């Protein structure tokens, strides 16, 4: 379970960043009083435009960033007080975090397995299962730098799941993948949900969110503007699909911000 309570994350800007953003404010609020709960056995989708604060929120859940205000509990562990336990519990995937290009997927899988304290037998079993599922075996001994972006993404996915985590946090997990592999990934996420894991993903692909997520949270300018099942969101916004609902909400809340 992931419980986010009143999460606010403020970034302090350097002078250079202020000039780049053409602002006189030296602070920027990436996430503003975000509260949500992702339960075991569900896939929670965080939906929002670029720069809405999705990645920041996920990084806070993964204990990579500390909340400026509020707190987050992952399986009961506080992300600030007990970050090591949090990192033991989660499998985190984002495009910005990469595997060492000089090593093979097999080596990196073993390396992170050992960092998670797994013994060689368990690592081997997990490798067999995940590499087979994601079709990595054909290129498992090639250097990561020699792989296509889709192959790299598959390898990163497998590595993030090496320790069989109870909580899965994926930032745009199907980004850069072909349609077959993307389906593979979403099927695997469903499989994890069915096993009772907590899954939270961020995406801006509406159809993916519609098909995959049990509940969706729409985040605009760092604020969670609406949360619920697909049906609840469509009812509340009086729209036919998620894309329409999203644009409806975006019009209202982006205007408020301006």
């Amino acid at each position, binding site marked *: 379970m992931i419980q986010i309570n009143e999460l606010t994350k403020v970034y302090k800007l350097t002078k250079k960043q202020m000039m780049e953003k053409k602002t006189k404010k030296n602070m920027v609020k990436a996430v503003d009083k975000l509260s949500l709960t992702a339960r075991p056995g569900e896939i929670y989708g965080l939906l929002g435009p670029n720069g809405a604060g999705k990645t920041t929120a996920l990084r806070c859940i993964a204990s990579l960033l500390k909340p400026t205000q509020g707190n987050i509990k992952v399986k009961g562990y506080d992300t600030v007080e007990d970050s090591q336990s949090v990192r033991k519990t989660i499998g985190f995937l984002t495009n910005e*975090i990469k595997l060492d290009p000089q090593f093979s997927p097999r080596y990196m899988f073993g390396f992170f397995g050992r960092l998670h304290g797994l013994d060689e037998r368990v690592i081997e079993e997990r490798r067999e299962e995940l590499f087979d599922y994601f079709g990595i075996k054909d290129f498992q001994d090639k250097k990561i730098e020699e792989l296509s972006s889709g192959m790299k993404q598959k390898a990163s996915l497998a590595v993030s799941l090496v320790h069989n985590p109870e909580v899965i946090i994926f930032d745009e997990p199907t980004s850069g993948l072909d349609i077959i592999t993307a389906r593979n990934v979403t099927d695997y996420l469903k499989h994890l949900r069915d096993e009772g894991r907590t899954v939270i993903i961020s995406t801006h692909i509406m159809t993916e969110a519609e098909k995959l997520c049990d509940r969706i949270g729409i985040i605009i300018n760092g604020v969670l503007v609406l949360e619920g099942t697909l049906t609840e969101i469509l009812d509340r916004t009086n729209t036919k699909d998620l894309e329409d609902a999203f644009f409806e909400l975006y019009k209202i809340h982006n205007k408020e911000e301006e």
Partner: protein
Amino acid sequence: MKGTKNIVKKELTRVFTDKKLVINLFVLPGVLIMVMYSIMGSLISKMETDIKTHIPTIYIQNAPEDLDYIIDAVDFEGNITYISSKDSTTHIKDGILKGDIDLLVIFDEGFIETIRSYKDVGDPIPEVRTYYNPSEDYSNAAKGNFTASVLHAYQQSLLAERLGNIEQLQVFYIDRDPEAGIIVDESKANGKFLSMLLPFLINIMLFQGAMGLGMDAITGEKERGTLASMLLSPIKRSEIVFGKLISLGILTSLSAVIYTVSVVVGIQRLADGAMGAMTNIQFTPVQIVQLFVMLIVLVYLYVSMVSIVAVYARTQKEAGTYVSPLYILVMLGCIMTMFSTGGVKELKYYAIPIYNGAIALQDLLVGELTMVKFGVTVGSLAIVAFLITTLITKAFNSERVMFNA
């Protein structure tokens, strides 16, 4: 510390499974250093032989009659042209300037008559003037050889003629057997040359090694986004820091050993045996332990210095800019030892990081490093390195440093 062990293993695997990196990091610099010094040595030797075998072109004006006899007697070889006082010397001086002519020797007119008519103090003394070009090796050598062999011999012969017995001029000898008067500690004397050179080389090589490897292992990984994947694993940040520092330390030590050996071997070739004495250096077991501990602590300090810069830098380019002043600082500390007289230094100097590393190594090589000085040096270096490590761990915990957040 399982995490540290895994990271060290991974970092070493990363380097040693990359053939290009191994060649560029360890093999090529070592070979190039040796080749460079060997070429320099052979060129210098060739140059010296060339100067020695060169037959100088010399013009002598107003040469006394018996000078020819002296030149033959001392076996001086040269293309000698004799000119009279009526001949102009302008074109000869131009030739010396251009390097076509090596030497012009002008004897005063009536040179030999003036010498022979000398009776008492105040009587005129004639002069021999030599014109040469100090920037031309041939000219320089011609002047030196002609003065030392021909003119000196000629002067002695004329003195003998004037006094009858030249030994009258010798009232006492100074050190007829110079070797017998030398009282020296062989080991200290042998270490003297090395003590001037090696502390500088070791420190510079250690820092250079740490610099090349540290920036890629930390800033490079930060830039590539691969460090963040490690930060996500359930190990303490300090384990990651120690994993990085230990692996960097091992690789730095290895490259420093290779570089230092290459430089020493290269210089030995360059000096063409002049440093042969250094092979006679013998260390006591205590000195060996001292040297080992000193090198370990120095590696720790330099790796941590480079790492702190690498952690804070956003790009490798930025890291390169930040690390340069530190490199200059290390060079400065070491250069100061190269030009010191080597007298006993006060204990406080052994507490100044970097400088103390160089002076303690210098003392160690001449067998003068006391346990107190060794302790102060190692303690001070270790404390600074530990403080920097604490800062690195803090930086690894900082989201601003790690994620530019």
